[in-house]
């Protein structure tokens, strides 16, 4: 794992809105195949960080590089073309299309066929879309209108869309928010499996600490725009400052974990 090349390198990101410092000198690295969680209380700067990586916000200073290539200042669509897939906190899909068509559009874009006025989209990357849907367990829903899907299924569809450009990096903003506990575990297991198999780096934010400690290789803790801790789940859980600011004493987690272990 430690031999994997550095995929994403973030150096000294700073962003302020008026007098509010959303990020102050945030730096970290992410390796291929690594699952990195970004946690912190509300207003810590997680979303700002995500939106900078994704290209929706331009930072005041600092730089982001993907495999050595600078992405800072590029538009989201350009960053996507460099191999960054993204899912949103509130799902963003195409409700008037079928599930399969949602993935097909992403594949068509990846194949640079967007200005093709003549071909029939139905035949474009149909099997590839089916394969991606099977991968996330949505194969049976391929012909359903996307607007009729349950929320958990939409999250899985988003994952399939995000995988369409064979990304090197996946950005997932609260991937399990609004899902039932069982769905959360399933989705994150799926994500972890895909990341390992395809050697994709994953950066995700999450408020559910079960999900975070279970599925991340490493955790970054952000508070008021500054990274206050970084390390393995065990290290972060033991960090007194993190406990004080964000996790609390973690009694519930420990209790549940012990129960689960003994069962």
């Amino acid at each position: 794992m430690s031999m994997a090349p550095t995929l994403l390198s973030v150096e000294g990101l700073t962003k302020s809105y008026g007098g509010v410092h959303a990020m102050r000198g945030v730096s970290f690295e992410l390796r291929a195949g690594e699952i990195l969680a970004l946690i912190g209380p509300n207003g810590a700067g997680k979303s700002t960080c995500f939106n900078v990586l994704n290209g929706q916000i331009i930072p005041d200073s600092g730089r982001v590089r993907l495999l050595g290539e600078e992405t800072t200042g590029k538009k989201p669509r350009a960053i996507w073309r460099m191999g960054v897939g993204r899912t949103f906190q509130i799902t963003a899909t195409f409700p008037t299309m079928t599930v399969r068509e949602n993935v097909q559009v992403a594949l068509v874009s990846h194949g640079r066929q967007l200005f093709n006025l003549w071909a029939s989209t139905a035949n474009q990357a149909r099997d590839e879309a089916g394969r991606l849907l099977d991968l996330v367990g949505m194969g049976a829903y391929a012909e359903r209108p996307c607007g009729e899907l349950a929320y958990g299924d939409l999250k899985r569809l988003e994952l399939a869309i995000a995988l369409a450009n064979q990304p090197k990096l996946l950005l997932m903003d609260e991937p399990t928010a609004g899902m039932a506990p069982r769905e959360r575990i399933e989705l994150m297991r799926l994500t972890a499996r895909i990341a390992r198999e395809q050697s994709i780096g994953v950066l995700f934010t999450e408020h559910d600490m079960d999900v975070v400690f279970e599925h991340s290789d490493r955790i970054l803790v952000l508070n008021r725009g500054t990274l206050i801790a970084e390390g393995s789940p065990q290290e972060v859980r033991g960090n007194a400052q993190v406990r004080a600011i964000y996790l609390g004493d973690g009694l519930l987690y420990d209790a549940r974990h012990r129960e689960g272990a003994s069962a």
Partner: protein
Amino acid sequence: MAFYVVQFLTGLASAAALFLVASGLSIIFGVTRIVNFAHGAFYMLGAYVAFTLTERFSGALGFWGGIVVAALVVAAVGVLVEMVLLRRIYHAPELFQLLATFGLTLMVEDLVVLIWGPDDLVGRRAPGFRGAIDFFGQNVPSYDLFLIALGPVVLGVLWLLFQRTRWGILVRAATQDRDMVAALGVNQKWLFTSVFALGVFLAALGGALQIPRDAVNHAMDLRVIVEVFVVVVIGGLGSIIGAFVAAVLVSELNAFGILIFPKISIILVFLVMAVVLIVRPWGLFGKPEAPARRTPGLTVNPWRPLTSNERLAAIAALIVAAALPFFAGNYALTVGSEIAIFVIFAASLHFLMSVGGLASFGHAAYFGLGAYGVALLAKLAGLPMIACLLLGPLLGLAGAAVFGFFAVQLSGVYFAMLTLAFAQIVWSIAFQWVSVTGGDNGILGVWPSSWAASPSHFYWLSLGIAALAVVILRIIVFSPFGFALRATRDSPLRSEAIGINGKRIQWTAFVIAGTVAGLAGALFAYLKGSVFPDNMGISLSVDALVMVLLGGVETVSGAVIGAIVYKALNIWLISKTDLSKLVLGAFVVLIVVAFPKGIVGTLETILYRRRKSTSSPSPILTSRIETAE
């Protein structure tokens, strides 16, 4: 020097009325999120009612009493409209709100003629402001000075109202988050009604105050609403200060534009608007737009290419239509050609609206440009018909490329306002540039070549091109480009995140739609043998919108059916009544409120439900149009 100062003062005086109307529009939009297209109609009503009150009842009310009572009377009409109509459509997609208020405008135009007659009415001078003041040898009407002072006074009163009263605070709160205000127990119905009343009062006051300056006529609504749209686009919708600054700016540009480009003074305003849009797309004092409400939302049956049976049915229908010349007379064939041409026109707008989610309120501009393109090529260059038909629509393409570039920078109501303003600009160029376009007299004698001259041949030509255009547009709908366009409409966030350059996709769609509309216009020029500025007028743009709506905005090619039904009805109606605008306007309002899915959309929903009847019906299929609570 004195001349320029006087010109400047005249501009300031014109700004007063513009500011009153624009601020009313902004206040209503801020709270209800409805862009009230009927605002120009209320302005016009204000002028007409004030005329009657100051002429007939000046003894009881006096001049100034008449002005204020006129504005109050029109505000009461506004309250009625709000309670009867708008309350039913507050949660409807914004396209429907725009259309319903547009329908109202059409109705008012005919009602005004019905009540006050078609002639211009010249009102009396304001007592105390009858004379003019000498300014270094130039005359400045003293009433202008009164208007110049009035603008800042109204601005101040509105500021006090919104900052210092409980009602004003509620309005500001509702402007920021109306759901939160409702959750706090504020009676939203009353708040919306009162805001609408204030907005209409301001518009009517603006109109009433015009009677000492200008003759009252039944075209003043569209003239003012286009200027007001330009004002709110520049100033920023929802900002009263923005409305004031932009009203002054636009009025001054008009006042001095006449000196620089006497023929086409509106060009200067357009240039300024273009610059503002590039630098600050949400206007000088506006805030970036919240994501627009999704225009689709009435049905969720995914679009499918025709099945082989449906394709056979379409071909059979085409064959039946092609057989018309064997049993119909020349008049029927001319009507048939016209319907075929409007099928092309409606299909082009439908492509932009349903696939792109871009409701253009000025699509006739590109229809008209195609017509003028043909007329100029045929008359000036003397090209043969085939060459004209191929090259003429390129003028529509060029116009769509220029205006579309700016229009797609915006979305939703801004897009609608901007496309309408562009269409008015194109119309006024055709109207004013007499040396090239012939102005109001148009260009006559555009006749088809002999091979297409007979009614049956021309009918087959139109029918063939219409079929071809509809097929090509359908192919584009299901092409990767069509999906990219739908993706941009469905979720700008997601489409950007999968590498789609939404603006460029939409711009391309705008150019495609403009070119096809230009093709329709080119054929129309040959059908009529002439072109006039009205070929790019607002009523034609509205016709196209109604055809799309009637067919069903969420269908793939409902506009074809919409165009056939509407055009046939329209031609029949014009032969039956003089009040076609009144009937048409009422028709538009009725469709929006009672029949929002259109003919094809309703049929599709019935079929879709039947197909799905084995599984439980989805709640999403039920209509989302609700009344405001």
